[in-house]
């Protein structure tokens, strides 16, 4: 592929084609660590027209391309391990248009999510999609992976924010999809095909998103309960009483890991003597009447759904309570966990967790599993920990079997094997096996239509 460097330079300029191995390496990986970066070239276009020329050149010479945003993905969707040409949109980071009457902003794909949030704030508005890596991730990547995060319960994921996309398809067509309109019923909406497509259909180059009025001040409550079924009752009850922004779930082992790892105290240190099997974290609009909360709590306690609860009295306490949830992943990382990002419908969640625990205990009694996640979205992170004293290799040998067990049950119960992290390289095989037949056939047909020569993100997703 290196022989095409001059032709790419003719499109984007000498300075914007990177050829040195060391400089290219970071462009070849995302937040996964399973693959070695090995891009042939890194190309940095500055406009949608340049992207189009790159794609046309790739089609002419059968050059595989990997689209690249902030590379904060967790499934290898942006990994270039087989000598592909990485096309990074990092120079395309302009905010193009803000429309006050529409409350929308149109920007290039390389705008960092946090900059979009800040821009919205400057207009007195709010861009609700937020997650741990929003300081590095690009809006284009958010769209390509339909990024979710901590406020999906209230505002939906990235999909719900997108009103328009300008894309370059794998064939080199420039499409202006939905053109920022709220109402537009003219044929199938191809915009939604590109959202979450993980770069296999084309390049997302421009994005129009809707902005929201800023939410009122928020309160955070952590409740302790005896069973996840009780937490689900609390969820249903709280939904009727307060305006929820988030409802998260932390199992006791996860809470123990956080308090041990970070030194942060359990919020129930002063009130409860025995630890609870599970905890829920609720974020909601601070009600105008304090009674709303206490009435809600009284009802929960009467029903025996919760043992105890604390509520933040200041933003500082809100942040501290959120840290209990946000630090779970980091606190478990010394145990080299095998992670699963799965979803089932809320009504099946208790049954799913119960059956999963039984199955894991039967087949892998030596392994410990830890549950946490976005309960309000039906999205659970199941982490299976490496037993103390096991080598990573010994644990790794079990990985396929354990994950197979998990994914089979998820699929059987009508769930998703990748709720928010996408498919990328990580789950490509498993997806093919699980979504057997008809659906895959249509995906392949769609890809073939947009990207006949399969130059886009080859070997990913399907």
């Amino acid at each position, binding site marked *: 592929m290196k022989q095409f460097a001059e032709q790419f330079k003719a499109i984007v300029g000498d300075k914007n084609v990177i050829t040195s191995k060391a400089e290219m390496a970071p462009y070849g990986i995302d937040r996964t660590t399973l693959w070695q970066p090995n891009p042939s070239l890194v190309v940095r276009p500055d406009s949608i027209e340049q992207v189009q020329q790159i794609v046309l050149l790739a089609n002419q010479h059968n050059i595989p391309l990997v689209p690249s945003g902030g590379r904060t993905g967790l499934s290898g969707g942006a990994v270039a391990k087989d000598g592909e040409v990485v096309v990074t949109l990092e120079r395309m980071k302009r905010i193009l248009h803000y429309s006050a009457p529409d409350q929308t902003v149109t920007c290039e794909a390389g705008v960092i999510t946090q900059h979009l949030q800040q821009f919205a704030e400057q207009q007195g508005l709010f861009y609700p999609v937020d997650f741990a890596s929003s300081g590095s991730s690009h809006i284009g990547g958010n769209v390509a992976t339909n990024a979710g995060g901590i406020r999906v319960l209230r505002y939906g994921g990235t999909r719900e924010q997108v009103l328009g996309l300008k894309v370059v398809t794998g064939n080199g067509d420039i499409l202006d999809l939905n053109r920022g309109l709220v109402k537009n019923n003219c044929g199938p909406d191809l915009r939604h095909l590109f959202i979450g497509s993980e770069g296999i259909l084309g390049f997302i180059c421009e994005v129009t998103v809707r902005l929201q009025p800023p939410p009122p001040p928020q309160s955070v409550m952590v409740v302790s309960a005896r069973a996840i079924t009780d937490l689900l009752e609390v969820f249903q009850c709280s939904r009727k009483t307060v305006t929820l922004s988030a409802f998260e779930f932390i199992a006791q082992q996860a809470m123990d890991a956080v308090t041990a790892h970070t030194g942060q105290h359990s919020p129930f240190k002063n009130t409860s003597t025995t630890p609870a099997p599970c905890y829920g974290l609720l974020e909601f609009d601070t009600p105008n009447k304090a009674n709303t909360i206490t009435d809600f709590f009284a009802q929960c306690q009467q029903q025996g759904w919760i043992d105890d609860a604390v509520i933040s009295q200041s933003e500082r*306490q809100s942040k501290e309570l959120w840290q209990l949830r946000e630090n779970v992943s980091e606190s478990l990382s010394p145990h080299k966990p095998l992670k699963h990002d799965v979803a089932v419908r809320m009504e099946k969640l208790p049954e799913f967790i119960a059956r999963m625990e039984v199955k894991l205990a039967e087949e892998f009694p030596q392994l410990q599993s830890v549950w946490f996640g976005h309960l309000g979205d039906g999205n659970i992170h199941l982490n299976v920990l490496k037993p103390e004293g096991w080598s990573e290799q010994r644990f790794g040998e079990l990985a396929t079997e354990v994950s197979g067990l998990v994914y089979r049950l998820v699929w059987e119960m009508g769930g998703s094997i990748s709720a928010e992290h996408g498919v990328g390289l990580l789950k490509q095989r498993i997806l093919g096996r699980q979504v057997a037949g008809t659906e895959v056939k249509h995906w392949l047909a769609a890809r073939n239509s947009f990207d006949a020569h399969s130059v886009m993100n080859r070997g990913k997703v399907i």
Partner: protein
Amino acid sequence: MKILVAVKRVVDYNVKVRAKADGSAVDLANVKMAINPFCEIAVEEAVRLKEKGIASEVVVVSLGPQAAQEQIRTALALGADRGILVQAEGDLEPLAIAKCLKKICDDEQPGMVLLGKQAIDGDNNQTGQMLAALTGFAQATFASVITVEEGSAKVTREIDGGLQTLSIKLPAIVTADLRLNEPRYASLPNIMKAKKKQLDTVTPADLGVDPAARTKLLKVEPPAERKAGIKVADVAQLVDKLKNEAKVI
């Protein structure tokens, strides 16, 4: 020993404060309010002294609008026993607050008055000191450790470049610094209990205090925005700019 704690309702520490467009005041519309962080620490200390059996009753006082009841209820949920709201609209100056507290001290006869060292809105750092002068009580400001003994207290103060430990006679005024303790969370059972605790409302007039301001607020404006930095092409340009534009070399 009874402990009196004063708490102030302020804009939450983590909220980015904005000035009103006409520069007349800070914009409080749709802004999260909370107990002043130093006052929250004072409440926590009083509650801990009660839990240790040193304090017999913790009375919490706030001066401000009717909504300041929320902050009193929070303090009651953290473990205070009883609340008093001195209801007054508008900005209250430290002297007016100290005079009201003095009258309450006369009525309640506390063994110790705990306050935050300052409120994060006015940043005055005056109320505790003024109250000590008005009551004639001993005072220890910027406390990071409080140990109560028979008729006296040992208070470690955070001072420039180190710590100072005082022994003061009770009754005394003690103002809390950041490191005194880490306040607990309000648990919902305690919030429920707090709803039933006694909360009396009085006015400055009831206490014989004229709360009229002695200073006039002329203008509120945000700090000047920092200019964005620039990138220089090479060392020569950097030196040139430092010499001729910034004039620092």
